[in-house]
């Protein structure tokens, strides 16, 4: 039986789409059949992050309105045969789809995929309602900032009100040096406020910006963010993986050691 996961945050710009792309890629690398659905109608960008923009022919709204079959709209990823993307429409808006249609669409996909990832738009309006309508579980993405955490808190409340009780947390863009100085909230502080399970923490890493711009998700590579996302994927599958050490060692000895590498 497949699992439908909505990736949401409330606030914009915290890394929902990047997380969706990386979790999707990571799960595909782990051998699962995965489809990612971009539910951000009118502001599509999951395809850009995945580097699949030029292959879009049909989109989510076309499928819902019956202009094409689901199979025609699904884009197979060029790197992983078991990873697919259902892009959203750029020319329409959120009202083009309603929650019932989303439920019906996802029911059709359940048979063919192990994991269905829904990239949720920011906000709590129609787009959010569409995205969560068919979800079994949710992953909340937040950064260690009060505004993002406040919105995440509201989203958790709304998810619980909609009978989604398996909710996990990703703390994104963590900077250990700032946490150490006491200038940024630590993972513990965030969990203390939100009171939900942590599924992973992703460090603020240059490589993720580069990867996103190149349309090449980095889950599973050797960078810190890549490792962090791979760990998250394993935890999604139910494996117990300890939190990685995110300290960047920039001391004198580390630099000397680098010279001799």
């Amino acid at each position: 039986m497949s699992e439908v996961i909505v990736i949401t945050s409330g606030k914009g710009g915290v890394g929902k789409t990047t997380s969706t792309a990386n979790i999707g890629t990571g799960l595909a690398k782990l051998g699962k059949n995965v489809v990612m659905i971009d539910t951000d109608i009118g502001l599509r960008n999951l395809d850009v992050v995945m580097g699949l923009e030029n292959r879009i022919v049909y989109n989510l709204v076309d499928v819902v309105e019956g202009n094409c079959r689901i199979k025609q709209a699904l884009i197979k990823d060029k790197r992983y045969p078991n990873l697919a993307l259902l892009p959203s429409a750029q020319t329409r808006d959120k009202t083009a789809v309603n929650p019932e249609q989303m439920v019906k669409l996802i029911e059709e996909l359940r048979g063919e995929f192990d994991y269905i990832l829904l990239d949720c738009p920011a906000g709590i309006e129609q787009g959010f309602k569409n995205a969560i309508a068919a979800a079994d579980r949710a992953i909340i993405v937040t950064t260690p900032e009060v505004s993002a955490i406040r919105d995440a808190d509201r989203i958790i409340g709304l998810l619980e009100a909609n009978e989604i009780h398996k909710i996990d947390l990703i703390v994104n863009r963590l900077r250990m040096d700032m946490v150490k100085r006491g200038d940024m909230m630590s993972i513990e502080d965030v969990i203390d406020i939100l009171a939900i399970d942590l599924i992973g923490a992703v460090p603020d890493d240059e490589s993720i910006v580069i990867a996103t711009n190149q349309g090449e998700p980095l889950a599973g590579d050797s960078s810190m963010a890549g490792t962090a996302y791979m760990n998250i994927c394993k935890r999604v599958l139910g494996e117990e993986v300890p939190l990685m050490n995110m300290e960047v060692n920039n001391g004198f000895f580390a630099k000397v050691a680098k010279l001799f590498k």
Partner: protein
Amino acid sequence: MANQPVIIKSNKYGLIVILDAKLSWEELKKEVAEKFSSSAKFFGEVQMAVCFQGRDLSLEEEMELVEVISANCQIQIVSIIDGNEALETQMQKAVEEREENPTDLMNLQDGRFYKGTLRSGQVLESETSVIILGDVNPGARVISKGNVIVLGTLKGNIFVGAAGNEAAFVAALSMDPMQIRIGDVIARCSDGAPVKKKKKADDTPKIAYVEDGNIYIEPITKEVLNDIRL
């Protein structure tokens, strides 16, 4: 003087307003307004029940008259009584019931439990006191006519004694609210960068109450609890 269009009779608890049956509605209202504004000083500021006689009135008409009366004098109409049997006792009952406020007493004594974290945007409203097993996060609101006890961290907005009862209190295991309102007294948390706040100063259970029109927040001790009235 026998054909006065509006006659007011009064007893200790209420007014009997005898209305002319033939006068047009608009004129009658004008007469009522005049009558009451001229006797406003005589009645002063009182709570009274009222009974209209001499004319059949619909519910809307009665309400209109009550509005006219309260617009022209300081009498607070607490109840409208129809018929005239045992009028005085009925009026007495209506006013006395109102004075006792039995519902408010019940709210303070009665309570309910709520389990779970109240998150941003969620509102818990209660006629009675509330005990919350969980946190009240920033952006959440609790409104109670009685008292509130939070077995967790209180970081949101809280309003107790919502019917104007300043004897109400708030207690929490960790007290860090955005805003506390007790009855009509409001206090808000001090300004300051929330992030810089190193580990919350202390996590001792605290209680907030009103004294001399100010809200005090103090650790829960026997002395403080002794001063709490239920």
